[in-house]
C-alpha cells in the first residue's frame, strides 16, 4: 500500500530545492545548478520507474515505454495523463501537458525585480522565464531517469513557450 504526500509539500520542496541550488550553492553558475537539479530528478525517476513497472509485462519497443510514461507514470505523478504525444518516428518524442501541475501555480515576485520591471519589462520577463525554466530541469531529469532505467538512453529538454502548457522533448540516443 503506497503512502501519499500532500501536493503542497511537493510543490514547496521543488521550489525550495530550485531556489537553494540557484541562489545559494551555485549562485553564479546557472548551468551547474541546472545539472545538479536534473541529476536529482534522474535518481527520482530511476527509482520510481522500478516501482511503477512492477506489475506489467516488459516493453517491446521504445514507443511502448514512452506510452507508459505518458499514461501510467504521469498519472502516478500528476494524477493526469500527458495530453498530446507527437513523434517523428526517428527517436524524437514530444510530450505535451496542457496544464503542468508544477507550473500551474507559479508566479514571480514583482518586488524582487521591481526596478527592472519598471524600466525594462522585457528584462524582467526574461528573468521570470529563466526562473521558470529552472523548475523544469527536475521533471526533465525524472523522465530521463525513468527511460534510462527501462533501457532507453535519451536526452530530455523542456519547452514552455505557452504557459501553463509545457512540452517535454525526448530524444532517444541511437
Amino acid at each position, binding site marked *: 500500500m503506497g503512502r501519499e504526500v500532500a501536493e503542497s509539500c511537493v510543490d514547496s520542496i521543488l521550489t525550495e530545492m530550485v531556489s537553494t541550488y540557484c541562489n545559494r550553492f551555485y549562485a553564479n553558475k546557472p548551468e551547474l545548478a541546472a545539472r545538479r537539479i536534473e541529476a536529482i530528478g534522474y535518481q527520482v525517476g*530511476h527509482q520510481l*520507474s*522500478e516501482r511503477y513497472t*512492477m506489475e506489467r*509485462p*516488459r516493453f517491446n519497443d521504445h514507443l511502448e515505454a514512452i506510452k507508459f510514461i505518458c499514461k501510467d507514470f504521469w498519472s502516478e505523478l500528476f494524477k493526469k495523463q500527458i495530453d498530446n504525444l507527437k513523434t517523428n518516428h526517428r527517436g524524437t518524442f514530444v510530450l505535451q501537458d496542457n496544464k503542468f501541475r508544477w507550473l500551474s501555480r507559479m508566479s514571480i515576485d514583482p518586488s524582487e525585480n521591481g526596478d527592472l520591471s519598471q524600466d525594462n519589462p522585457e528584462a524582467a520577463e526574461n528573468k521570470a522565464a529563466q526562473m521558470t525554466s529552472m523548475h523544469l530541469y527536475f521533471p526533465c531529469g525524472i523522465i530521463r531517469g525513468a527511460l534510462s532505467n*527501462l*533501457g532507453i538512453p535519451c536526452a530530455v529538454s523542456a519547452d514552455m513557450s505557452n504557459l501553463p502548457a509545457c512540452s517535454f522533448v525526448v530524444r532517444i540516443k541511437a
Partner: protein
Amino acid sequence: MIVCVAVVGHQNNPLYIQSFTDADDALKLHHIVHCSLDVIDEKVNNPKKSGPTLNETFLGLLYPTENYKVYGYLTNTKVKFILVTTDLDVKDADVRNYFRSFHAAYVDAVSNPFHVPGKKITSKTFAERVTNIVKSFGFSSAA
C-alpha cells in the same frame, strides 16, 4: 525449500546472492545461478521458443537439474531474479507469487536514497525480508 536466491543487475552484475543451506555448497549454488543467466538470455532473445510468455516478467522454469529446480524472473528494468529450490513439485502460481514479493522487497531496497544504483544491496532490512519470504515458502509447500 528454497536453497538460493539471487538478484542480478542489467549488465549481469550480481546485486544480491544468498544461499539458505546448512551444508557447504554455496559455491555450487552460485554456479547454478551463474549458468541460469545464459538460459535467461536465450529465453528473452528467442521469442519463438518462449511463445506467448514473451513479455511476462515471470520466466518460468529455467532448467531442472538432478536435485534442484531453477526459476527466473526478469523485470522491465532488466533486473533478474533467480530462485533455486529443492522442491520438485512446485506450482508455477506459487513461485510467481514469491517472485512478486521478492520484487516488492527489491523495489523498496533500491528506493532507499542511500543505495547506489548498480551496486550490491547491503540493506539488512532487505536481507531480513528475503529470509522471511524464503521461510514462508518452505512452510506453505510442506503443508
